[in-house]
């Protein structure tokens, strides 16, 4: 086991990757998402009317949280150009004669355009816009009613009948950092671990020194047990600073206790290691084994449903994604960090990881035994 630690240490490339990868990932993603959520969506207002009521609308747009009016193009074409260039996301066009039509209670139409090419961005923009449009049309309606001689209280009541209050649970500020940064850092960590694990068996049996071990008659089971132990200890040692930074320094939320999370991580580390071991027992040499490992590790984050929900994937794919330990881990991680739904719910996640580990280790040992026969 000491030998394994020194191996990992002396393999300079591996050392750099293991030491720096996850932490660097954490800092990088932290920096990328430092604004935390999508605010100040760049907006342009084309005011073709230039009247007091159109200015009122513009004021309203301005005061909307999340929207930030950055320019006032003179006409539609200019705004279109701005959207094309991606300088603004939302464009508002207030038509000519807006004030006159409003005064005459004629039907007018405000055009709002959202650049939906970045869907995450656009969903936010559209939510913000929907909020504004409601108030705008309500106010206009009230004005009309008032003009028709209805008393103000009834008029207001007609519109403000039911007030909806929105609450985003578990992450009330819709903070991207809480949602993505740690998960991504863990994803980096997960990939690093796969790299290490995928040289578990091949790293021994694939080099000539394997002859020495074979000749010495050292029990293979014991050898790989110690080796794996060394790997898993390393994995855990690596993830702890990530957690410390994430929860201690960056103050990310954690709903469950730190111990539970660590235990869960440990189980995942074992499961992950078992998968890597399986790869390494089947592969031809260390490079191929790393590639196989990566083929699984890279898309696994997308497949895990951490971002794009599993429920929205095709029915056929849904059972498949649950094969990967990464899916269990990232789903479970989301539950643990935000919700902490209790043991009876999380129990299945813990079990699943154990089962995966068990299956992969047994397969790996069978394969190795066959290879060495």
């Amino acid at each position: 086991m000491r030998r394994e630690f020194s191996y990992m240490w002396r393999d300079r490339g591996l050392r750099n990757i293991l030491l720096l990868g996850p932490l660097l990932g954490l800092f990088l993603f932290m920096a990328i998402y430092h604004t935390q959520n999508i605010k100040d969506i760049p907006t342009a207002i084309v005011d073709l009317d230039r009247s007091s009521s159109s200015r009122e609308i513009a004021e309203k747009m301005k005061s909307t949280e999340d929207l930030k009016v950055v320019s006032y193009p003179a006409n539609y074409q200019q705004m279109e150009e701005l959207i094309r260039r991606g300088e603004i996301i939302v464009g508002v066009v207030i038509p000519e004669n807006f004030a006159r039509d409003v005064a005459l209670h004629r039907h007018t139409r405000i055009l709002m355009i959202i650049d939906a090419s970045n869907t995450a961005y656009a969903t936010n923009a559209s939510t913000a816009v929907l909020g504004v449009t409601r108030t705008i049309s309500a106010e206009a309606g009230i004005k009309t009613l008032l003009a028709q001689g209805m008393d103000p209280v009834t008029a207001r009541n007609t519109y403000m009948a039911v007030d909806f209050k929105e609450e985003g649970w578990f992450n009330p500020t819709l903070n991207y950092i809480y949602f993505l940064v740690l998960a991504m850092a863990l994803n980096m960590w997960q990939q690093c671990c796969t790299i290490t694990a995928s040289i578990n068996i091949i790293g021994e049996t694939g080099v000539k020194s394997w002859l020495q071990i074979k000749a010495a008659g050292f029990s293979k089971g014991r050898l790989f047990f110690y080796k794996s132990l060394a790997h898993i200890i390393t994995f855990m040692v690596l993830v702890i600073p990530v957690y410390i930074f994430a929860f201690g320094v960056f103050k990310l939320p954690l709903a469950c206790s730190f111990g539970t999370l660590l235990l869960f991580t440990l189980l995942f580390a074992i499961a992950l290691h078992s998968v890597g071991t399986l790869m390494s027992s089947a592969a031809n040499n260390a490079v191929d084994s790393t590639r196989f490992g990566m083929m699984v590790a890279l898309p696994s984050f997308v497949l895990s449903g951490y971002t794009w929900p599993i429920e929205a994937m095709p029915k056929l794919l849904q059972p498949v994604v649950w094969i990967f330990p990464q899916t269990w881990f990232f789903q479970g991680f989301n539950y643990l960090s935000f919700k902490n739904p209790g043991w009876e719910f999380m129990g299945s996640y813990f079990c699943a990881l154990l089962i995966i580990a068990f299956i992969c280790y047994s397969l790996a040992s069978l394969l190795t035994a066959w290879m060495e026969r």
Partner: protein
Amino acid sequence: MKQLWNIAHYEFLHVLKDPILIIIVFIAPLFYACLFGAVYCSAILYDVPLAIVDQDNSVLSREIKTAFANDDSFRIIEGIDSYEEMEAGMKTGTLRAAIVIPRDLELRIYQHRPAQVLAVYDASNLIWGFNSRKFIREVVNDFSIRHTAARLAGEGFSPREIENIVNSVECNVTAWYNPNYSYSNYLFMGLMMLAVHQLGLFGVCLAVTREKERQSWIHYIASAIPSWKIALGKALPYLIMNFFNYALVLWISSRFVQVKIEGSVGLLAVLGILYLMTITFAGFIISLYSSNSLQATRYLMLLSLPLFMISGYTWPRSYIPEFINYIALLFPSSWMVLGIRMVSLKELGLDVLWPTILALSILAVLAVYFAMNFKKERKAPYIDGVNINGGISYPRKINRLQALRQQIRVSRLS
């Protein structure tokens, strides 16, 4: 020219003879396209599991209920009648949103007292969060208008008048480029471009490191052939295959995943060629200078996620700190993912795309220049004491199978 062709021809043969390379070059792009395609093929979220905790049980509350039930975005989960049940459901993920209608809602409204309906959504996954929030707002807007209309009708207004009042200022919200907020339009191409990037790099990376590991690289450097011919000859097959893959990915995504790929085909081709040239020759450079392919593989693999994140494809560039943006400019992937979106989704022309094309051209020229002018003499190899995980060597059963195949071939020949 003949030499060039010769190298390219045999490089191609190498690819065909190496199962791993065949996988990387031919199968993996297809595989990733199908995989990610399957993941994102539903493209938009719908059927958000929603519970309505109706503590009021009045006409109004039923009205609200129907408003949500009639919306495609939501799927009503029945049988959740208390706040506690709802809370538990939210925690275990069976619910992603909930509406809580308080006990005396109708009464309060009737008495013109303020009343509040609570709309809860799960923000622990922001994709759920954002979408549910948007859907809720849509339904609520809709509901308010209808509700107002109904009340006005109750007050004795004619439908025409109601129409006029309600729509006195109509706000028309249109989403351009991606009218139904489809996630496949948005994410899929970016992921695929990165997959092409990584797989392209891998293939080429193996080109030289493989020869180095098998010692045959020495024949290249011991002959008088100029380095540009080696670089070009080795890179050419990969360039062609990568371009083929690129076209294939585009085709699959538009045909099967229903990703919107419009805009000028010429521009797509130009972007593709520049992008692939950059990565192919960059891969060649990497493989020239990396000592073994294991290390190269590891670093490249780990880069994929950060590359995607810093490109500003998902998280808008203006929110990313300046210095990271500058770093991102150095990578062809950041230019490409944004460029492909501009062409395929926004259907922009050269007038907006010229910086992207210019940047990619510069990167391509740099890559080609450095690849073609490499120093042929290698650094004297230093035999490392512990070169554990790098090499091939001790034969395994799979290798033995290969050997068996060879022997059979030989015995058939003789």
